[in-house]
């Protein structure tokens, strides 16, 4: 935390309502996630955290992070509340609006209440530093497990601590006592010697006259009262009585409903439609043909979708139409071979000299692994509601990427950005899917042709077939081993380097490494999918290491330990996982136990999967997961994220497969893209380690270790190595 002042700025002011607002602007010094189409600037991103103390002594945390069930809003509110000594029972969260100027004091003022009285010391800041920083921020994404790590750690804690110090200063002056004699608790200030007591709100206005501390003192973990506690999520009560409002639940006066269909070959154009008989169907109001989709607007969604089913749509004859699954993988293999034979490998990471070390290796181990395309399958189908009036547009949707959506809609409609307002809603699942701008842009195009608001809803089939997919990929390893079976040369080749860059970098102690890739050439669009590249590389590397272990006559746990001997955090996680699973015990007949360890988004997570193969098909009985995210802000919330990541990983590993034939996605709904259900869900044991290391993420790190731990367990049970996912396909094809 010592370096934050070089990157961050604190500001404060008082609203005319008497509320105190303290804000922290931070450039986190962390490379923006270079997810396709989401980054408009190479500059560092700016994260903002604000706190508002209202006159009724209610404290509100304000930050630009949306809620898709990951509990981030609750966790970062805990971080604020603890540093502030707030009353947890009287605290709220408010999602910051989608505007790049949210970093900007003037806009925050407008947002938080309007008519802010600006303290004099702020004037230079508003026009100077903050404005300059504002221009850098074009990104406001919930993803990459960043909320707690950056906004919480570098924003909320500092804002809370600064606000508290300013309140104490104001009270000290009024009470004419030294600030050091004032203590704070549950949003009250106390001077015990004189038995004085006041609410934070009583000094909110006075506190704004003080310069925010340049470096507020943060609590040590021993003093935490709210951070590190399993506080109940703030959003959960509304999710048990049907009152939570998701994007799909928006209801506007005069609104009509749109059902849509895009070309089955993603990105292809629509050439013509035959609407005969459709326009007279009940409830149909409008038929819209765009270059890339058709929409039926009707009085009700069911009427719109019934009519859409009757519409005859013709598509262009795109070259992608000839592409099928086998050809995609065959192209991968050819380009990989060609890159090596022609010396055209794209370097990912290299140290030592892997090729030279290979020449002197006692033995060489080679293996090829593959993973398929995957859809996100959010429970809430894609949807957006748009109202256009004159040169202004309002959008209601659930998104991980509000600012990009606002900008994309403004560009599509030719409106000024300032005239486009995004009202972000709860997301019925995100997992990376809701970071794309396609669905709100489509809704805006439909609304532009209507003189009433429209709610566009994609069918489940459209949601499955017009996704942005976890890429299919292949990886080849050529590993040089010494006589004892220890790796002396590590050569990995794979398809497509996306994000994050370290996903393909081995965590193991290796001397000679060359990791390289080739780029794919197909029309299936890339989308970030829970943990992004870690899902592929976790499976590749952790399957390979398991194979190396067995080739060396060792078990996967012991072999990994030796390769992680100089990494105490990894070892601690690995050991705790093996202990939790009682590694080495005699397993029931037909059972197998597999282990894996993946570091992603700053969190180290190891898992043991126990599988029962006695019926020939895998039945996962137990998953033991241990993670070290540095420090756990909300233990139960973190555990829930790991449990979720495990089930998400198991669904993908066992069943997940999007296949392409004639350029189209073949799967359409949950009958052919199955999701794990309760009867198949294992018992999940979660432990966490507070190592004190820099904070890691929670939403994604539970997923990458699951698939390899499962396939390693299947190998342990049956001797059958699954090198191609999903397991259910691999079991029948890779024998």
């Amino acid at each position, binding site marked *: 935390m010592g370096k934050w002042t070089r990157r961050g700025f604190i500001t404060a002011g008082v609203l005319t309502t008497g509320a105190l607002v303290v804000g922290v602007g931070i450039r986190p010094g962390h490379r923006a996630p270079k997810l396709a189409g989401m980054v408009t600037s190479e500059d560092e991103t700016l994260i903002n955290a604000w706190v508002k103390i209202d006159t009724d002594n209610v404290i509100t945390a304000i930050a630009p992070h949306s809620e*898709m*069930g*990951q*509990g981030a809003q609750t966790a970062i509110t805990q971080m604020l509340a603890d540093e502030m000594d707030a009353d947890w029972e009287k605290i709220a969260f408010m999602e910051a609006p989608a505007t790049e100027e949210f970093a900007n004091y003037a806009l925050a003022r407008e947002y938080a209440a309007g008519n802010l009285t600006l303290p004099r010391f702020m004037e230079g800041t508003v026009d100077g530093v903050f404005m300059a920083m504002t221009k850098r921020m074009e990104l406001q994404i919930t993803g990459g497990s960043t909320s707690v790590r950056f906004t919480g750690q570098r924003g909320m804690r500092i804002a809370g601590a600064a606000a508290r110090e300013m309140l104490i200063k104001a009270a000290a002056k009024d009470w004419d006592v030294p600030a050091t004699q004032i203590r704070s608790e549950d949003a009250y200030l106390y001077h015990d010697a004189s038995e004085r007591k006041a609410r934070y709100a009583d000094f909110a206005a006075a506190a704004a006259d003080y310069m925010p501390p340049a470096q507020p003192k943060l609590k040590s973990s021993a003093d935490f009262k709210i951070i590190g506690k399993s506080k*109940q*999520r703030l*959003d*959960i*009560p*509304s*999710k*048990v*009585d*049907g*009152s*939570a*409002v*998701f994007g*799909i*639940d928006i*209801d506007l006066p005069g609104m009509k*409903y749109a059902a849509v269909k895009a070309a089955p070959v993603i990105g292809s154009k629509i050439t013509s439609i035959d609407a005969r008989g459709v326009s007279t169907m*009940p409830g149909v109001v409008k038929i819209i043909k765009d270059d890339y989709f058709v929409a039926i607007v009707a009085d*009700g*969604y*069911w*009427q719109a979708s019934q009519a859409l089913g009757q519409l005859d749509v013709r598509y262009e004859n795109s070259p992608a139409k000839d592409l099928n699954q086998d050809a995609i993988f065959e192209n991968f293999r050819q380009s990989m071979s060609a890159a090596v034979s022609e010396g055209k490998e794209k370097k990912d990471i290299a140290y030592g000299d892997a090729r030279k070390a290979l020449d002197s290796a006692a033995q060489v181990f080679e293996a090829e692994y593959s993973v398929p395309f995957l859809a996100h*399958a*959010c*429970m*809430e*189908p894609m949807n957006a509601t748009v109202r256009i009036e004159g040169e202004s547009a309002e959008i209601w949707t659930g998104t991980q990427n509000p600012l990009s959506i606002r900008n994309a809609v403004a560009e599509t409609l030719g409106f000024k950005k300032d005239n486009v307002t995004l009202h972000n809603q*709860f*997301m*019925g*699942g*995100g*997992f990376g899917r809701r970071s794309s701008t396609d669905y709100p842009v489509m809704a805006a195009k439909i609304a532009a042709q209507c003189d009433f608001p429209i709610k566009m*809803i994609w*069918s*489940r089939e459209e949601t499955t077939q017009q996704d942005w997919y976890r890429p299919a990929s292949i990886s080849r390893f050529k590993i040089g081993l010494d006589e004892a079976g220890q790796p002396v040369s590590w050569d990995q080749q794979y398809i497509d380097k996306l994000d994050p860059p370290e996903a393909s970098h081995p965590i193991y102690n290796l001397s000679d490494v060359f990791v390289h890739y080739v780029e794919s050439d197909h029309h299936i669009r890339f989308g970030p999918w829970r943990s992004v590249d870690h899902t592929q590389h976790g499976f590749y590397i952790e399957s390979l290491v398991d194979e190396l272990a067995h080739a060396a006559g060792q078990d996967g746990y012991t072999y990994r330990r030796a390769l992680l001997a100089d990494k105490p955090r990894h070892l601690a996680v690995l050991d705790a996982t093996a202990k939790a699973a009682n590694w080495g015990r005699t397993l029931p007949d037909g059972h197998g136990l597999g282990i894996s360890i993946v570091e992603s988004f700053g969190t180290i997570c190891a898992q043991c999967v126990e599988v029962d193969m006695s019926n020939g098909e895998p039945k996962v009985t137990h998953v033991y997961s241990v993670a070290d995210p540095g420090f756990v802000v909300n233990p*139960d*919330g973190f555990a*829930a994220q790991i*449990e*979720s990541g*495990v*089930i*998400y990983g198991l*669904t993908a590993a066992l069943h997940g497969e999007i296949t392409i034939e004639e350029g189209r996605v073949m799967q359409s*709904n*949950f*009958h052919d893209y199955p*999701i*794990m*259900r*309760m*009867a198949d*869900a294992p*018992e999940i044991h979660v432990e966490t380690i507070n190592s004190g290391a820099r904070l890691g993420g929670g939403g994604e790190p539970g997923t990458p270790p699951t698939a390899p731990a499962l396939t390693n367990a299947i190998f342990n049970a049956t001797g059958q190595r699954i090198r191609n996912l999903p397991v259910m396909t691999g079991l029948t094809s890779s024998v």
Partner: protein
Amino acid sequence: MATLIVNGVSHEIEADPAQPLLWALRETLKLNGTKFGCGIAQCGACTVHVEGQPVRACQTPLGAVDGLEVTTIEGLADADGQMHALQQAWIDHQVPQCGYCQSGQLMSAAALLAETPAPSDADIDRAMQGNICRCGMYGRIKSAIKQAALQMPQPSPEPAMQETGDIDAEETTNG
């Protein structure tokens, strides 16, 4: 014209009898707690009770529920607003993540407990098999159902269950 009795209130609905109940609840009655997930009775997000039985509203035509009692998530609490034991258990176990499937999960669970107040694990698995939770909170759902079951009144003589014909058949094949 169909008569819908939803959460105890009677409504006359002017709509095609083939239109699924889901859209009448959401668009006509503005009861948005019941969710659209798949449209083909594969995910359970639209689960409501018809005469106490869990059905998938996305595949239940209005014509099939004419005059019948429908209960949605908005009607799961009692008339005084006291939460159903399941709802409190859902909070206690911090069940929802994204929360989108939870109305359907709760309605399936409530139907289970009404019929089987002390369900076994297998009973729970069977009753909940039609409900997908993409956030994977199955362990918590199961724990919460068990907690709520402890608070359910002991079985008394069963109220006569009304046959709901087609709806039940659809439910068992698709669910």
